[in-house]
């Protein structure tokens, strides 16, 4: 028997076969040739004849070589892996997938770049918002047993006051009777005058119970915090400094411990300095001193003045704590009906309470940014589907060659994961920038009131989030294309070149994705449209005061000085007169609070109407002002008169009310001459009605407000509002005041004026502190900054969505046109005009857009209600916004169809028909 093997090997020489595989093939073929040879011999052929005829079996062996080369290319590694562990195979597969995926992506840099940037924008936006959420909502504080902390408030039934503070006697009850709480801490915000330095300094701080730091579980940076018993008279003259105050006033002197400082003329010993990140409560205070419960106050059940933090015992749930507080509150209602009948205590989770301001804004920002990521995913899925179509043949061959569908899906998912990972890395870069931009979006003066804002940054959480988001994104945008690619019958694909039922299904998916993209972007655009309209409305709303060309400074009199009301009034009056005489000053007013808002809550009764129980009286804002205040802030008089110098301490008591109050309680504008009983139990006559002013949250211009005369109620503190002259002579100053934020030279003029005012005050009393000045415009900007940030964010997100949806639509239409070149050519050959073709393609696009817009409108209707809490002057279902935004999207999307449609009309029928 001849040895066929050399002959066979010769013919397989240039086929790269694994040795084992080659041996098997050679053996098999040689057996075949043996059979053949034997049969020929058996049939009577001579050896030579039989040999030659048998060798003829190998004729055309280039076919064999070619087929083998094709067949063995991918299979080889799997065949030669002997006895290896399954896991190593999977690892080597993964490595192979990664390398192959990277190669495929590198081969199409255009596609890869677009996909990566799209995903980076989506992921980056999400990381940015997540970082903000992480800092201000999830982890605004890092107190060790945060989950055991609750805030406790009292609800004053019938007055609408939901978050009233707690009375001293109630706190004492809880301390004595509670079993579920380890301890209760309390804080009171207060102003202090620090003396002993160059000039007296106005400081904010907190009086806190001795348990305060222990309840939060925080440790000082230097020294110690309060010990039990230090909140009793005689031991209370100790102070803990905030890090910023320690740096600012004491140059971070490490030997500060044991030194004394003078607050409100009393001497306090510095016993500790808190770490830089400790900023609680969030009211801008810079020091903590013990709060002393005076025996006289211990029985007080009417003065709701204490902010109470409860620390639950370990293992006690919030629900149990809540139940106990409610039970104690019920007991007090029965025991002390006179004061507690309508008082109901309740708990709020610590984080939930501290972050409730940010929550409103962040919830829908997060929603919006997720929409952006979804749209990005849809877009990339679309790109992958289009590419999948182009690769259909490659995939079919691979499956024909024995790759299981699981293996192919894994390969495709690896590719989309690679894209998403690259997108994640780039996105992280975007978000570093984004977070910086965000941090700058809120002015310092306001940021200190937002818990956690100072921690804003990209941290480990953000990294983790980005990694997870990238992973999810990769799977989300890769799954559909992968499933699509393997779900079709590769046999069909190999036969008809990828135009079978599978491509039809794929087109349907692509269309569905585009419809989803259009719908999602519309929801986002409408949301953004509403917020932008509302913000523009706020900007255009009559504020009720004129923020330009005016500034304010704050003065609080030290405790124990100016004890007599007339002393205080004389001081204020003299100061106002001196400042009014300064060059460039047009008007000077004194007030208990500076607009926007600025008032405190109070209640009143209308004299002559049936008396309501103290907790059921109508509520209003209360502001105490001097006669000059209205001219200084620019609030107009509507009826009656303003205060004047005759409304002194001994004159008949008078008040002004704003239009909102007058309208609500005296419908026929008969308010003037009516009398109001205020909280202190004295009647005041309404002598004038002034315009409404914007409240502090910038969402209502019509809160009822009562103005009392400073002469009749000289407070211990006051803000000085100074308006610059706006005539030609004083223009420089006026500009300086108006542009203080942007213009450094203006800042200088303001500083000059501030200095002049300080000198006037020092001439009156050198021991009195006065705060830095702030223009009313600055204050307004700070207050409006959250709304501004949200508006800008939503605007950016909506724009991103619009661009992505447009690009997605463009891609789908272009692809559809390219795929149907043959059909279009046929139509043209059969006499269709360019115009018809154009219309045909645009109509197709229009169907997708129309469907998307329809769904988007429904979605927007359902979703934008969430926005109603932050909208001002626009309803969540504002028809104009819906219509304009839908039209905008329609036009943009149609533009995306025009180019492919035009391209379709350029199809040369001859070429198109030959295209096959």
């Amino acid at each position, binding site marked *: 028997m001849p040895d066929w093997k050399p002959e066979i090997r010769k013919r397989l020489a240039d086929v790269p076969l694994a040795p084992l595989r080659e041996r*098997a*093939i050679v053996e*098999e*073929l040689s*057996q*075949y*040739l043996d*059979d*053949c040879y034997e049969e020929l011999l058996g049939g009577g052929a001579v050896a030579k004849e039989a040999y030659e005829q048998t060798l*003829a*079996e*190998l*004729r*055309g*062996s280039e*076919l*064999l070589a*070619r*087929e*083998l080369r094709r*067949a063995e290319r991918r*299979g080889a590694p799997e065949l030669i892996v002997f006895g290896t562990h399954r896991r190593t195979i999977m690892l080597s597969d993964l490595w192979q997938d990664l390398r192959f995926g990277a190669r495929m992506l590198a081969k199409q840099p255009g596609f890869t770049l677009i996909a990566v940037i799209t995903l980076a924008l989506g992921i980056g936006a999400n990381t940015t918002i997540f970082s903000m959420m992480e800092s201000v909502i999830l982890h605004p504080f890092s107190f060790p047993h945060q989950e055991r902390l609750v805030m406790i408030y009292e609800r004053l039934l019938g007055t609408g006051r939901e978050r009233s503070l707690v009375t001293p006697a109630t706190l004492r009850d809880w301390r004595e009777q509670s079993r579920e709480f380890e301890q209760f801490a309390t804080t009171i915000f207060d102003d202090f005058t620090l003396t002993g330095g160059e000039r007296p300094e106005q400081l904010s701080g907190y009086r806190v119970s001795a348990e305060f730091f222990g309840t939060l579980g925080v440790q000082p940076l230097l020294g110690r915090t309060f010990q039990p018993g230090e909140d009793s008279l005689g031991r209370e003259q100790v102070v803990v400094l905030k890090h910023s105050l320690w740096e600012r006033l004491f140059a971070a002197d490490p030997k500060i411990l044991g030194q004394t400082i003078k607050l409100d003329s009393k001497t306090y010993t510095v016993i500790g300095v808190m770490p830089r990140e400790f900023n609680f409560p969030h009211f801008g205070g810079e020091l903590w001193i013990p709060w002393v419960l005076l025996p006289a106050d211990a029985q007080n059940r009417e003065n709701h003045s204490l902010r109470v933090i409860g620390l639950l015992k370990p293992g006690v749930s919030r629900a149990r704590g809540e139940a106990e507080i409610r039970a104690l509150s019920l007991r007090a209602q029965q025991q002390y009906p006179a004061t507690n009948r309508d008082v109901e205590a309740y708990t709020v989770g610590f984080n939930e309470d501290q972050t409730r301001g940010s929550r409103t804004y962040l919830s829908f920002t997060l929603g919006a940014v997720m929409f952006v990521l979804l749209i990005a995913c849809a877009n990339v899925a679309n790109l992958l589907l289009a590419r999948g179509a182009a690769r259909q043949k490659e995939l079919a061959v691979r*499956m*024909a*060659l*024995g790759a299981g569908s699981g293996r192919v899906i894994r390969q495709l998912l690896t590719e989309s994961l690679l894209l998403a990972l690259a997108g994640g890395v780039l996105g992280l870069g975007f978000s570093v920038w984004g977070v910086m931009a965000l941090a700058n979006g809120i002015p310092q003066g306001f940021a200190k009131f937002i818990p956690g804002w100072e921690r804003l940054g990209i941290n480990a959480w953000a990294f983790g989030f980005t990694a997870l988001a990238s992973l999810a994104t990769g799977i989300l945008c890769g799954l559909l294309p992968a499933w699509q690619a393997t779900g079709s019958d590769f*046999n069909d694909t190999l036969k008809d070149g990828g135009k079978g039922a599978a491509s039809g299904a794929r087109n349907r998916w692509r269309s569905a994705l585009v419809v989803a993209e259009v719908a999602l972007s519309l929801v986002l655009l409408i949301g953004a449209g509403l917020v932008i309209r509302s913000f523009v409305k706020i900007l255009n709303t009559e504020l009720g005061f004129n923020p330009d060309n005016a500034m304010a400074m704050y003065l609080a009199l030290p405790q124990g000085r100016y004890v007599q009301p007339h002393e205080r009034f004389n001081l204020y009056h003299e100061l106002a007169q001196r400042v009014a005489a300064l060059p460039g000053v047009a008007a000077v007013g004194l007030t208990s609070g500076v607009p926007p808002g600025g008032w405190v809550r109070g209640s009143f009764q209308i004299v002559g109407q049936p008396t309501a129980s103290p907790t059921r009286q109508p509520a209003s804002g209360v502001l105490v002002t001097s006669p000059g205040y209205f001219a200084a802030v620019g609030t107009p008089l509507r009826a009656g008169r303003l205060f004047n110098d005759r409304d002194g301490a001994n004159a008949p008591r008078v008040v002004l009310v704003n239009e909102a109050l007058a309208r609500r309680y005296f419908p026929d504008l008969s308010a003037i001459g009516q009398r109001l009983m205020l909280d202190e139990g004295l009647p005041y006559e309404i002598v004038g009605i002034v315009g409404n002013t914007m409240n502090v949250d910038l969402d209502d211009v019509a809160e009822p407000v009562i103005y009392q005369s400073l002469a009749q109620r000289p407070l211990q503190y006051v803000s000085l509002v100074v308006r610059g002259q706006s005539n030609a002579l004083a223009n420089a100053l006026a500009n300086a005041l108006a542009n203080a934020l942007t213009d450094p030279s203006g800042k200088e003029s303001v500083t000059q004026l501030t200095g002049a005012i300080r000198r006037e005050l020092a001439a009156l009393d050198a021991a009195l502190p006065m705060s830095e000045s702030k223009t009313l415009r600055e204050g307004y900007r700070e207050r409006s900054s959250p709304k501004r940030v949200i508006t800008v964010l939503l605007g950016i997100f909506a724009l991103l969505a619009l661009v992505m949806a447009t690009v997605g639509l463009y891609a789908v239409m272009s692809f559809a046109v390219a795929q149907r070149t043959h059909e279009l050519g046929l139509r043209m050959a059969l006499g269709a005009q360019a115009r018809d073709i154009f219309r045909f393609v645009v109509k197709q696009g229009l169907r997708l857009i129309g469907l998307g817009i329809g769904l988007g409108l429904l979605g927007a209707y359902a979703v934008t209600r969430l926005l109603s809490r932050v909208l001002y002057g626009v309803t969540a279902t504002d028809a104009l916004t819906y219509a304009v935004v839908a039209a905008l999207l329609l036009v943009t999307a149609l533009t995306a169809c025009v180019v492919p449609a035009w391209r379709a009309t350029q199809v040369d029928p001859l070429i198109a028909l030959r295209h096959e």
Partner: protein
Amino acid sequence: MSHINSQKFDRELKKGGAELLVLSLLEARPRHGYEVRKLIETRSDGVLKFNAASLYPLLYRLEKRGWIEGKWVEKAGQRRRRYYKLTKDGKKVLSAQRSIWQSFVAAINRVTGLEGA
């Protein structure tokens, strides 16, 4: 009737006819390569002929697709041989191809007027 020359047949191969032949022959029981070749030749009365160079690429291709499965089988006193067996997928493909082929043949017959001839 002269037999179709192998170059033309190679072309036919691509169109699936050859696949159909091989799959059909493996339907009843597993066979080795030479057996397949002989069966095609004898059952077609010598009209259809394969040689090793055209048969084996086909077998390997079908195997790669998972339609057939080759296995070395050792029988006592014989050299080991590679037997090919129809897989589950292969059975599905076979029945699909059969019906396509039948309708193709029927169509040709109708067109060429051979029907019922």
